[in-house]
Each structure stands twice: as C-alpha cells, then as structure tokens.
C-alpha cells in the first residue's frame, strides 16, 4: 500500500547525536506534608537524559513519575509539597535550587511541558491563537503581529489543517487530538531544549494517539530536542523511547536502553510488568500477575519497596534497601536496584 508509513525504531536511526547529558537528576526527593503524615511521592530518583534523545519514564499510577516531572518544572504546589533533597542539573544549572525568576526564564523557553488532558490544560475563554501568542510574547518578546505569524507557522508545523481559520477558534471547537496538537504547538513555540510529555496520548483514541506520537517523534528529529515521555503504556515506550527508567513507589528500580530493557528485563517488578501484558501471552495461556497493590506513599515498606509483592524477596530485602547497580555498561548502561539478580534471572 503506497500510503503505508514505514519507520524503523528511533534507536536504530537517530541515535543520540552526542552523548552529552542535558538533564541529570540525582537523588531527587519530593515529599508532600499533610496532617496524615508525609507522602514520599518521589524518594531518591536518579537518571540521566541525553541531548536529542527520548527518555521514557514508566510506572503504574502513584509511582511518582508525574511528581518527578513537576519537580523538574518546579511546579510542585508548596505547601503541601517540597523538594527536600537532591539535584536537578539542567545544562549544568541546579533547578532544585534555582530562584523563581530563573525558573520563569527556563520554563516555556528551555523546558516546556504537555499534559494528558488537553481540555483542562487550555483556557476555554481564549482562542487557541491568543494562548500560543501569549507564550511567544512573554518568552521571546515578539510584537503581537510577529507572534501571530509565529503561531500560525507553529499550528501548521503540528499538522492542524487550515491554520488560518483554526487560529481564531476556541478549544471547545476542536477535537481531543487537535487540542493536543495545539498544546504541542504552544510547548514548541519557543524552541525548548527539553519537552516533558506527561501521558500525552493516554486520553486519545488509538489512531489519534499514533498521530500525536508520530508528531512528537518527527518534531524531535527536526528540532533535535530531548523528550521526557511519561506513560504507563509499555507499547508507547517501546515505539518512542531510547532509554527507559522504570519507577516503583517513588524510586527508579531499573534504567536501561529500550532494546536491552525489553529484551532482558532484570528487576522482578519490570519482569512482572512485562508478564502481565496481554500482548506477550498466547491466547489461552494465563496472564501472570503481580499480587497485591502498590503501597501507599505514606507507608512504604522498609528496605526494598517491592518486596511485599516480590516472588523472590528475602529477609535481607526487608532490612537493606538495594542500591541502583550497574549490570552492563553498553548503550548508556543498564542499572538495576535488586539484591537478588541471579534469582530474578530465573523468574
């Protein structure tokens, strides 16, 4: 079929142009303080995002992936939340300690973010053109007419048909996919170095999801920006990310290149996650499950946080927290936080 679009996985074509880290997160801890106690939503997260690559941040609800992203943007509502430890090195500057004035310079310009639900992220009483122009005028200091020109070209770039007409429409006049395109146009309007996409396609239908992911991939290749893609969908990760950080209960439990991670997951949680995917099981065969539920951020288990659901946990797992340890150094390194890697390999 002539209209078929063939593309190899991004890791095969656009390998990282250079190995320079753009964002290095080290031991980040973001806690929320309430009358019920302290919710340790993010509690010692470390990973590196290289220039020009897509890092997938994957995990189930409540694992801390969105809080990690909001910490990078310094958008954690304070109170009740606060970054209590760690560094967020972006191009060498520690965002965890940056002033609000510095953050205003960085947000929107250097780092921008798109969210899951484009309807709630857009203001319903302004036209989409007004909203894109606001970002451009604010961050780049362009005059209104120039900003409108730039908005038009952004709408065109993200594939909105007849942008001349659409620019004066309100968000409710657009479909979910179109709104997400507008969000992307807004996020991209100041040529950010890093785009954080928090479940950008989760609320969309599968054919529209494919359009949005293709668009993000295409823009990334054209503009050479980095992307932090937050999702719970391992299929989306497999098709989009170069590197993957798997989060569980406020921590990164495994970090690797996408091919080694999917080829040979090492952490019992990652292994369990893959086994519970209906895609990878023959019909008729039983899905394997991870017993129990994610522990509450108010009461994480001692030692390894996965031990309460882990099939190979021992007494040591309750006593000692396993550090992230390198198991292979190819392709940016494969690190895993587990005391019992040999047993895990036999799972």
């Amino acid at each position, binding site marked *: *079929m002539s*209209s*078929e*679009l*063939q*593309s*190899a*996985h991004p*890791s095969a074509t656009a390998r990282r142009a250079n190995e320079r880290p753009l964002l290095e997160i080290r031991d980040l801890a973001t806690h929320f303080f309430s009358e019920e106690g302290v919710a340790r939503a993010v509690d010692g997260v470390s990973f590196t995002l290289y220039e020009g690559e897509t890092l997938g941040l994957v995990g*189930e*609800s409540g694992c801390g992936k969105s809080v990690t992203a909001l910490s990078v943007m310094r958008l954690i509502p304070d109170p009740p939340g606060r970054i209590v430890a760690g560094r967020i090195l972006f191009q060498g500057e520690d965002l965890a300690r940056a002033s609000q004035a510095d953050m205003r310079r960085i947000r929107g310009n250097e780092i921008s973010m798109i969210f899951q639900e484009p309807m709630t992220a857009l203001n319903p009483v302004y036209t989409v053109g007004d909203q894109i122009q606001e970002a451009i005028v604010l961050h780049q200091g362009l005059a209104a007419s120039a900003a409108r020109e730039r908005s038009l070209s952004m709408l065109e770039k993200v594939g909105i*048909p007849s942008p001349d007409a659409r620019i004066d429409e309100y968000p409710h006049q657009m*479909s979910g*996919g*179109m709104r997400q395109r507008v969000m992307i146009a807004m996020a991209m309007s100041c040529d950010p170095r890093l785009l954080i996409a928090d479940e950008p396609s989760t609320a969309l*239908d*599968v*054919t*529209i*999801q*494919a*359009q949005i*992911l*293709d668009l993000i991939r295409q823009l990334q290749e054209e503009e050479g920006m980095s992307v932090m893609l937050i999702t*719970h*969908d*391992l*299929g*989306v*990760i*497999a*098709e*989009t990310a170069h590197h993957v950080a798997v989060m569980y209960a406020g921590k990164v439990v495994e970090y690797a290149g*996408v*091919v080694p991670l*999917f*080829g040979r997951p090492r952490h019992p949680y990652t292994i*369990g*996650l*893959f086994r*519970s*995917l*209906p*895609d*990878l*099981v023959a*019909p008729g065969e*039983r*899905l*394997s*499950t*991870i017993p129990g*539920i*994610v522990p509450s951020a108010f009461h994480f288990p001692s030692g390894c946080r996965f031990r309460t659901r882990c099939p190979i946990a021992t007494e040591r797992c309750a006593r000692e927290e396993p550090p992230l340890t390198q198991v292979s150094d190819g392709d940016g390194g494969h690190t895993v936080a587990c005391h019992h890697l040999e047993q895990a390999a036999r799972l």
Partner: protein
Amino acid sequence: MSATAQTGGRDGAPLIEVEGLVKHFPIRKGVFSRRAGEVKAVDGIDLAVGRRETVALVGESGCGKTTAGRAILRLIEPTAGSARYRPDQGRPAIDLLALSQRELRPYRRDLQIIFQDPFASLNPRITVGNTISEALVVHRVAKGADLRERVDSLLEKVGMRPEVANRFPHEFSGGQRQRIGIARALALHPKFIVCDEAVSALDVSIQAQIINLLKDLQAELGLSYLFIAHDLSVVKYLSDRIAVMYLGRIVETGTTREIFAHPAHPYTKALLSAVPRPDPTRKRIRIPLEGDVPSPIDPPSGCHFRTRCPVAEPRCKESYPAARDLGGGIHSAACHLL
C-alpha cells in the same frame, strides 16, 4: 443479512442475537424543542453472542459501542431493532427490545453490566455488602442469614475477604472496586454480562488480575460476555470473536484469530497498525489515518469511513457497502474494495 449473521457460540443457537439495532438521539432546539436532527449513535448493527462466548465490540470513542451495549440491556431505549434472547436451548427466543419494562424484569437477572470507572459506579454512601446484596433483596432472592452468606461467597468468588462487606467503596483501590462491581454483577447468577471498558481504567498489573478473574468466572459459571473495549491487546487475549465499529455501524466481524491475522477492512487495518506494541525491535508499519472521526449527526454519505480511508474511490461516496462473507462464515467485512 449483514456482517454478523454468522452464529456465534460454541454450542447451538446463540444466547443473544441482535438484529438491526438502531439508537438515534434527537437533538432539540429552540423554545418549542423542535427536533433539529439526530445523533445516529448506533445505526443498524447485527451481533450474536453465543453461550460461554466472549464477543468484543471495538472502536474509537463515539463509534457507538457503549450505546449499543446499553441499548441491548434496555438501559437506554433503542430506536429500532431486535435482540432475541434464548435463556434455554430449544425454547423459543424472547425479543428483549419488544418487552415492556415490566415484562422485562424477570430477565434482568440474567443480563448484567460491569462499568468502566470503578470510582463512579459504586455509591460512596453504601457499604460494599449492601451494594452487592441490593439486587438480591430487590429480586427477593434471599434475606437474613442466607443473604449474608451469599454476599460472603460472592466476595470470595472475586478474591476478596468477606470482612470487607461492612466497609465503604472509598477504602478500596481501583482494582478492588472493580472486583466489587463484578461481585455485584454476579449476584443474580447472570448468563450474559456487558463489560463496558471493564479493565480500561486499571494499571497493567491490576488489569491482568481482573482479566484472569473474568476468564475464571466465565469458565466456572458459563457466562457470555459482550466485551466493549478500545484496547486491542486485551481484546486479542480475551475474546473469541470481534466486531469492529465505526460511526454507528459494524464494519468488520470475525473470529479473533481471523481479524488479527487477516484484517480486511481498511479501518480495521489502520486500527491494528496504530496499536503500539511492546517490542522495540519490531519494524513499525503504520497506516496513517488523517483527521478525526466525523460527527455522527451528519455522517459522510456512502461508506462512513471514506473521508479518512487511505484507499477510498468515487464509488465509496455513492452507497454504504454491504457486508461480504470472506470465507467460511467466520469473517465478513463491509467495504466496496474487498
């Protein structure tokens, strides 16, 4: 006869046989509520679900799959069509859509639904035990100690401890709430359950638990499922047959194996190609679909899919394509270009 006349089911006549199901929602305008048009949510579908069979109804938001499921159960009143229900082999079928609400009541026990959102579908002020026992009380099936025993055994059946009966929904996680919703649906020993996106809101590891539970219950209790979903990987794993909907109509139907191995309709092909697969080494061959689903108020003339179809021809504008059998009565599709 259209796409779905093929009998579903592993033994004998299907449990439920839907024919020509239509649901149009009127749009009213102005002070006199003049009828200004209608949303053609479901526009003539045929569907059969056999005994112990799982039939998946798939499609994107707004295609009418949820409306179809609810219309079959008469949770909304269908505009036209029939749904013949055969509780026992050999006995004549009953048209569920022709009965009055009063005549329908005895059959309600057999027909249940599990909803998508386990947060919205449970009443926050009613205990888990009362949520489950309500139907048993209303239908005067059990009371007193017998009632409590039944609730306990239902909770056990869905993998929860009987003690939770006195607790309220907010004390439970999404997966546990979905188990409660399933226990409620099972209370009256149903034969047919509409699972409306029953696992869509759950995390992967919890989703696997619920899918296994649905399969176990089907084997144990001989249930039939109409599984409404947009997640094709779950559908592939769980269902025996699949019907693909687009803008109120079924465009393709067949056994799960056939649909995944040899999708025939351009929409099915595009839909399958758009599903992200958890395999980074696999070469992606994607059939891109332009634009969005058109409005069901004013669907395109002829084939509804032609405005987004990568292979549409002039004749697709002219008439809606009739369903064509693609072999053996296990696969059919409605496309001019087959």
